[in-house]
């Protein structure tokens, strides 16, 4: 363990880089996770309605699928931001 006193006084460049990398990883995780929640909330209502519509009329399947995956874009954006953060 690093002595707490020396940790605050002597912040080495390695430690700064490491903590930056760590925060980047946290940010990437948050980007995907939060965007995923957003997508989930969006698809929740659409998915239920799409199921109902398809149950009543099987021809609706294509359109229903289309509507359901529209919010998918949000999580893809999250994923892209995460990838840009990491690489």
């Amino acid at each position, binding site marked *: 363990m690093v002595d707490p006193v020396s940790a605050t006084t002597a912040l080495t460049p390695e430690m700064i880089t490491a903590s930056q990398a760590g925060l980047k990883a946290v940010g990437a995780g948050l980007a995907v996770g939060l965007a995923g929640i957003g997508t989930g909330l969006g698809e929740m209502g659409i998915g239920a309605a799409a199921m109902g519509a398809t149950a009543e009329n099987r021809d609706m*399947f*294509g*359109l229903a*699928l*289309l509507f359901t*995956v*529209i919010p*998918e*874009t949000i999580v*893809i*954006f999250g*994923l*892209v931001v995460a*990838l*840009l953060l*990491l*690489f």
Partner: protein
Amino acid sequence: MLAPRQMSRLLIAGTKEQMGAVIAELYRHRLFHIEDFVGQEEYAGFKLGMPLAGATEASNDLITIRAATNAFGVQADSAPHGRPVSGAELRRQLQAELPELDAQADELVTRRTRLETRAKDLESRTAELEPFASIPIDLDLYRGYTSIAVLAGHIPADVAIAAPHEKAYAGGKKGGFIAVFTPIADREVVERQLLDAGFAAVRIPDETGPASEAIARYQAERASIEKEIEGINRQLGNLKEIHASFLLAADELLTADVERAEAPLRFAVTDLAFVAEGWAPSSEVPEITATLERVTNGKIHVEELEVDYDHDSVPVEYNNPSFSHPTELLMDVYSRPNYREVDPTLLVSIVFPLFFGIILGDVGYGLILLALSFLLRKYLAGEGGNLLLDNLRNAAISSTIFGLIYSEIFGFALPWKPLIFSRHLNIGGEAHGHGPDAVPMLIIAIWIGILHITLGRLISLVNHSRMDHGKHRTQAMIAQAGWLAFMWGILFVIWSMFPIPLMPNLGAIGGPIALGLNIAGILGVVLILIGIAGIGQENALELMELPTIVSHVLSYARLLAVGLSSVAIAMVVNYIALGMFINPALENLTPVGIVLIVVGIVVLLLGHTVNTALGILGGGLNSIRLHYVEFFTKFYKGGGKKYNPFGMKRLYTTEE
């Protein structure tokens, strides 16, 4: 190619004597899409035709056949596909065998129904008797009294009754059963006390002797009935074996008879003549005309009518090279193309597998999917299933090719370096290379998006120029050009401000002229303004859609993102299985180590199975979504009517 098959509107008119021959000939050729007569104005004086002679008989026979088919449990794909039988032979067979077969099936089914009813009856009686079995009183002692009332039923626990009575109680796990004998005068008092204790009365069965004996008797009878039902089912099964192909062939023959006999219901007729309107592929019109004239000795009038595209809905038949046939399924899921618009099936059939491969580029998964697309053919019978598997096959081939390019097999590297971009992640600390080329791939994905959407808008220009008229046509085309200008304007502005790898660096052209923008930037701003004006002049509300330009283009980033996440899952599975279980155990082999190796193998198999399933979903759904949402919304109208020619694809019978 890129357009549906060309159709001609045909009018066939003749005398009623010729109607039978004409219908038979049209049915045989399976080319004429009948437009139903619904009393249109120009047909004043015409009425609906009557079915041909023999329609009722054929329908009745068909019902008999279908009843037998149901009784034997024959299914269309359960019978062996033998040599098709000739229609004439089948008719003789029908005459000779149908009545007997029908009687046989009817008799067996009636007997089975009767036995099943009896079995149900016995079952409910047994259930009624069961509680009485726990009380040792003969059933005839429960009734036949003049001064005593009998109450029997379920009760949670035994109860003390404050009135003259005799009772028998039998306890059980879920409450007990009680039988109370009391003078009729005290009945009400006793009943109230019982009800307060949670009593639920049951009917006293109409039986004699001990209840257990009656139950045993009924159970024996039920067992014998069940054996008998089994025998009947076996007999039906045998009959199915013998008659399945005959029934299916007869069904086909009679269905054809009925369809032919009922065709006049879709024609316009007068007392002496008939008129049929419909559609046929233009290339086949001379052939149809010639055969109709031949069978009627020229006593028929076949005319090609002019098509009014605004009012007639022309049936749409795809016209694609055989390579694109499977994709027609994906098109029909969305909507069949309109007759006059560009049919993008060919484009989708090329781009869809490409997208799939870009996302799931892995030799291992590709080969697994390729194998699946052949193995599943047994289970996914039928035309739709086969087309779906053809799509999977094309996607799997593309995935394998991209796997070779990316140098990936189940998340491991192949013995060569990735040919263009690396997707190898640094998982498990075994650093090799510089990690994935995420940024260049992202930019390539965006480029694909820009070009795909531009293509969509260009097709839209063609569609509007074909389908619209007059002022509206000009407005719509300007609006489409406006969308293009807007998108490329944004790109010019971005390119002039930020240097981006793999994209033109327009910032290097010259210094800022105005507003801090250089010449390319100014050009971009002008394009954006022209675009907004172009879109707005058609419909100002459309301007609300402007941000979708950005989101739709960025949406193509999924080509990289979904693929990279699939690689990550594969590599994590490999790391857990090999790096954490198998390799450490192999270094120092102990009995515990063998268990660890087994666990590692299970993780490996399970992980890759899940990832294969995710790969199909991720690759397939995202690729098709890019088409449905980002590409089709730019130009595709759909809503075409399916071309459904009058006739039948014969499977079990041959023409007579």
